């Protein structure tokens, strides 16, 4: 029985992670969808993981191996790299896609004449307005069942949503975050 050299497992994962942005762009172009859609992003992350799993299976199938502590450690490291990269990429993409300050700057750059604060408010996100942004966030919270909306009143749901809010509130105190947003 041979022990599989575990390092390539990690290198394959690094390679798969590098492929995620490329796959993402390719899926957007092939499916003719827009970057705002989450599907191409999720799909590219899944395909990258699948490619790595195929490489792992190939390694295991071709080589006579024993599962050593070294192999398990490399397996864990590969998953840490994947999860870390996906989180970082999600953060980057969310900034490009949903960035608040960025959107303000893009709106100013699109205009021929410099805007006032009222014009910026009304024409936020390519003319959708600042209220649209709040509605989008509120809809997201409603879909997650954290809040309920009745007659333009927003109510924090009882039970686990209140516990989530309490944890977030305490975390903000712990990290000395005043206000935020």
């Amino acid at each position, binding site marked *: 029985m041979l022990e599989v050299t575990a390092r390539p497992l*990690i290198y394959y994962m690094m390679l798969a992670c590098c492929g995620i942005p490329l796959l*993402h*762009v390719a899926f*957007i*172009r092939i499916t003719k*969808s*827009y*970057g*705002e859609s989450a599907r191409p992003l999720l799909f590219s992350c899944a395909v990258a993981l699948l490619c790595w799993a195929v490489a792992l299976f190939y390694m295991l199938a071709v080589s006579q191996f024993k599962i050593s502590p070294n192999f398990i*450690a490399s397996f*864990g*490291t590969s998953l*840490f*790299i994947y*999860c*870390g990269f996906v*989180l970082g990429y*999600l*953060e980057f993409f969310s900034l*490009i*896609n949903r960035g*608040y*300050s*960025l*959107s*303000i*700057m*893009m709106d*100013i*750059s699109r205009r021929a004449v*410099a805007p*006032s*604060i009222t014009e*910026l*408010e009304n024409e936020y*996100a390519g003319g*959708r307005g600042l*209220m*649209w*942004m*709040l509605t989008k*966030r509120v809809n*997201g*919270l409603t879909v997650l069942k*954290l*809040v309920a909306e009745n007659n*333009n*009143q*927003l*109510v*924090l749901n009882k039970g686990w949503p209140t516990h989530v809010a*309490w944890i*977030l*509130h305490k*975390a*903000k105190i712990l*990290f*000395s975050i005043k206000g*935020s*947003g």
Partner: protein
Amino acid sequence: MSHVFGFAAILVYVVLGILLLRFRRGRSPIVIMLIASSVPYGLFPLLTVRLDMLHYTATYFFGLMCFLFFWGGLFKSISVRVICDLLEEETRMLYVRDIYEKYLLTESFKGRLEILIQSNYLSLDDNGKYKLTGTGQKFVRRVGFIQKIYKISASG
């Protein structure tokens, strides 16, 4: 063992971050958290010689990303702000119009414009009009190029 050290380094980082944020005295929290991340990462390899740097780095990288994802949400997310504001209300209820006017428009929107001016991305002229500075234009061009690659029509 290297994974354990990686997680221990993250724990040290979180504690260090909490302490530094308490005594930041007006310095940017993001800069503080990014600089603080290098200290625990460099500390543990000095304490032990039996450390596989690849396993250690991957574990630290994963923990760091998880923490920054959570902390970034707490720090900048509008949704988190809305939830926390609702919790602080006795009735757990707020009017959408009040959230818009009191928080989003007055505090958040104007606050972001102020930060963009301080960061030298925007300038405000005497007529109350906002213009992109040279740095701002360069930044917008770069981001616009990335948005074009991803076919993002309008962010926000």
